């Protein structure tokens, strides 16, 4: 809260000003940590601002000017966050790019944003940037953090981060005027300046550059810092993509407003261990991550001894019955409280400790619908997990759930100072303190998205429930109708399927068709483990996916989904009549998923058109050949003969009779 008051008091309207303020107010508080060579290195606010100053002056000496754009590419590393602040201090605009983007995608962003410099993590990123450098005529300099493998690169465009920083430091040491000059350039920054350009993940076609201003970004972050009572004593592990609005908001923006410490993991593979060592108090995870964690815990428990398993499952049942009620502050009998307390000592406490969740005060999940069981599992352990609904265009928050008002089906009421309006066609519109200024170089798209009175169209369909909480059902444009007129919300059906641990991804079709049909991707971890325990031999994803026993298992899931759809009047007409298990995993490298792992529906419909035709032509199997892209960009071919299964459709009435 102190951070919010400071921000208001001193008209701190840019992030570099906030940083300098923290360096004055709390110079010795930790600001960033990074695990290097197995040891956590910590930088205080004073040290961070000194590093940023040196690197920023270094950038200036390389010719970086106000208004120019700097690409930032890599995993979560202090130096890359510093690069953003360093650019902002000079009035330049950082443009983070997804580190796992292939060269072509990266080229598009660099070209579209007309960047003049790039600060990247390592050789891999340097190679990608250099390979598309021709498309970006303004690019003058590529600065890399990790020097490994780059010693023999013979190009004048390349500098190491350390060299640029040291050059800046030398200039600062030599002449005191340099520092004064630099401080002046920070002061010259205004709240209306562009703070950052974030590219959307491209769920609907090519990604767009979202231009966000400093004052709006800080206003939005200040609201949520107050909402969740974040202070400089909080700890956050930043492990989500640097280029994603979630990380930029939750770690960078909130961190600079509240003054808390963000910790960067040693590598992508060590995130879980690092989280455990840090013990974050504020935590964000997409449902996918939470699901992976749970799957891993459950798989390891399968290998535990009998008595341990019994104790574990006993107390999980106790938590399931009472945990959420206790967390919500409801009336719970004393005996149940005692039972739960024992569970806390024996199971929940140690489990939370292993996951690194012991100190969590506030945790959020968002990005896609979360399974009720999954959500309840974490909450029943006493973790204050909440949902939020947000967008890059809003600089994240549109709605969020206040403590104690949690419902898995909805995403909560409007966030502080956010207005929401629902259009007659069900589309959700918002006006928020952090909302974007414009799409980069695309005034047409901007005009399309923003209404005359300043509201932003989310493209999502939803409605408010009786408590005034928003419920999102699908993308507005994806909600369609079957030929008999019944409502078809593909995502709604897919999410029901994805809540089964053995289903990784599902894509439903049916708009303008006679019935609903569905592609399914099995989860290789869960199904592979099941196969191992049942002595089913397989050599590849494709072979496992085609196994009749796997088909039988998935058929049972589809059956349950159909029953639950039949029970809802509005959705009963959209039961799954036919399904198949895809012969390959949907992959972002093939353009089938976005970089944030969301399904790109229309692309998939086109790519697997043969299979969809087979659905509606009534075939029982269909040969298909698909091109796949490997991680290094090379291409290969997979072909398979995919089987199609028919399902029984329930009539709502028949279900009722059966129930009686």
């Amino acid at each position: 809260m102190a951070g919010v008051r400071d921000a208001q008091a001193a008209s701190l309207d840019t992030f570099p000003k906030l940083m300098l303020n923290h360096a004055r107010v709390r110079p010795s508080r930790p600001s960033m940590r990074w695990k290097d060579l197995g040891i956590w290195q910590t930088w205080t606010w004073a040290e961070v601002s000194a590093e940023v100053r040196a690197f920023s002056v270094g950038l200036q000496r390389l010719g970086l000017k106000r208004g120019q754009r700097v690409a930032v590419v890599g995993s979560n590393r202090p130096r890359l966050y510093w690069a953003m602040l360093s650019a902002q201090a000079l009035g330049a605009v950082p443009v983070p790019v997804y580190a796992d983007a292939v060269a072509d995608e990266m080229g598009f962003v660099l070209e579209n944003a007309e960047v003049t410099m790039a600060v990247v993590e390592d050789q891999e990123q340097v190679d990608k940037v250099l390979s598309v450098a021709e498309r970006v005529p303004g690019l003058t300099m590529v600065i890399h953090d990790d020097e490994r493998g780059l010693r023999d690169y013979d190009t004048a465009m390349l500098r190491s981060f350390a060299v640029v920083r040291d050059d800046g430091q030398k200039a600062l040491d030599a002449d005191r005027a340099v520092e004064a000059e630099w401080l002046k350039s920070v002061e010259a920054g205004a709240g209306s300046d562009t703070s950052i350009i974030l590219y959307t993940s491209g769920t609907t076609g090519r990604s767009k550059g979202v231009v966000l201003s400093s004052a709006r970004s800080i206003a939005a972050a200040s609201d949520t810092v107050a909402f969740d009572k974040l202070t400089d004593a909080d700890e956050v592990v930043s492990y989500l993509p640097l280029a994603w609005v979630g990380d930029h908001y939750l770690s960078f923006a909130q961190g600079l407003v509240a003054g808390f410490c963000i910790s960067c993991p040693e590598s992508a593979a060590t995130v879980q261990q690092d989280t455990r060592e840090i013990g974050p108090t504020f935590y964000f995870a997409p449902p996918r991550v939470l699901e992976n964690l749970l799957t891993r815990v459950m798989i390891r428990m399968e290998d535990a001894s009998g008595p341990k398993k019994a104790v574990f499952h006993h107390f999980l049942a106790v938590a399931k019955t009472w945990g959420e009620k206790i967390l919500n502050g409801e009336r719970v009998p004393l005996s149940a409280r005692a039972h739960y307390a024992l569970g806390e000592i024996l199971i929940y406490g140690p489990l939370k400790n292993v996951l690194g969740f012991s100190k969590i005060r506030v945790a959020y999940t968002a990005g896609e619908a979360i399974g009720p069981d999954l959500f309840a599992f974490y909450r029943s352990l006493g973790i204050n997990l909440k949902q939020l609904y947000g967008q890059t265009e809003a600089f994240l928050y549109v709605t969020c759930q206040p403590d104690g008002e949690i419902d898995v089906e909805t995403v909560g009421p409007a966030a502080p100072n956010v207005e929401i309006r629902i259009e007659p066609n069900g589309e959700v519109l918002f006006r928020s303190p952090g909302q974007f200024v414009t799409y980069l170089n695309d005034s047409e798209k901007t005009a399309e998205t923003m209404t005359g009175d300043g509201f932003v169209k989310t493209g999502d369909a939803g409605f408010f429930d009786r408590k005034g909480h928003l419920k999102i059902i699908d993308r507005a444009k994806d909600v369609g109708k079957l030929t008999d007129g019944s409502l078809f919300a593909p995502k709604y059906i897919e999410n029901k399927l994805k809540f089964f641990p053995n289903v990784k991804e599902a894509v439903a079709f049916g708009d303008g068709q006679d019935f609903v049909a569905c592609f399914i991707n099995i989860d290789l971890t869960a199904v592979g483990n099941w196969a191992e325990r049942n002595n089913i031999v397989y050599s590849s994803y494709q072979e496992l996916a085609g196994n009749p026993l796997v088909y039988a298992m998935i058929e049972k899931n589809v059956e349950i989904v159909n029953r639950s759809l039949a029970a809802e009047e509005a959705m009963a007409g959209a039961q799954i009549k036919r399904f198949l298990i895809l012969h390959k995993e949907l992959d972002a490298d093939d353009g089938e998923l976005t970089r944030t792992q969301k399904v790109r529906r229309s692309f998939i419909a086109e790519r697997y058109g043969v299979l969809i035709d087979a659905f509606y032509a009534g075939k029982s199997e269909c040969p298909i050949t698909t091109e796949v892209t490997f991680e290094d960009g090379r291409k290969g071919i997979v072909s398979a003969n995919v089987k199609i299964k028919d399902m029984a459709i329930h009539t709502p009435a028949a279900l009722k009779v059966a129930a009686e």
Partner: protein
Amino acid sequence: MQSYADIAKGDVLLSVKDVSLSFGGVKAIQGVSFDIRKGEVRAIIGPNGAGKTSMLNVINGFYHPQAGEIMFKGIRRPKMKPYEAASGGIARTFQNVALFKGMTTLDNIMAGRSLKMNVGLFWQMLRFGPAEREEVIHRRRVEEIIDFLEIQAIRKTPVGKLPYGLQKRVELGRALAMEPELLLLDEPMAGMNLEEKEDMCRFILDVREQFGTTIALIEHDMGVVMDLSDRVVVLDYGRKIADGVPDVVKADKTVIDAYLGVAH
């Protein structure tokens, strides 16, 4: 540590002259000569039983040839034990991973430092004073290798639990921990998938670039060998049948007949 650019190409680091090795009546190696230059990646290829692994074993002192001589760093090498080769700057990995399965990745790589540890057993047992100071220094070096090979996530995992590809990487780490001048790799990519192979290739090239280590490797994957190595020596039935840069070797008729492209 010297940079790759500093390495004077052409200096011979190790040469093998007319070496013959036999086990009873089996002639594993017959009169083979070749050399390994400083800073190069030298591949030894050949069909099964051609004598490749025997050759590595001769180089690192595990086998003693009945005839011929080996010059290392310009000096004729006497009959020596493997540990003498090790302290002389030759490290190796094995065809079938030879790690301490019950120990962690960290401890396995630390074991590679044991030749560099000077503090006596007494202090080591107390783990105090000089022993502690020394351990910190070695641990730092080991952590650099862990960082280099990107195996931070398995630092504390017993290697027996690791998949094969990672075990190979740990083994490379242990060899690197010795800071060798000459690194012998016996089928570093065997049993790996494409992605693991590519990773391993990158590590091998990075090892040379960053540490200036000379590398001799045995490998069956021709794509890897031809891409990675500067020069290739081809063995068949214990004899050398070709020696030269990959393009020349690839085009050599004897090599094609013996090994590469004859349809069976």
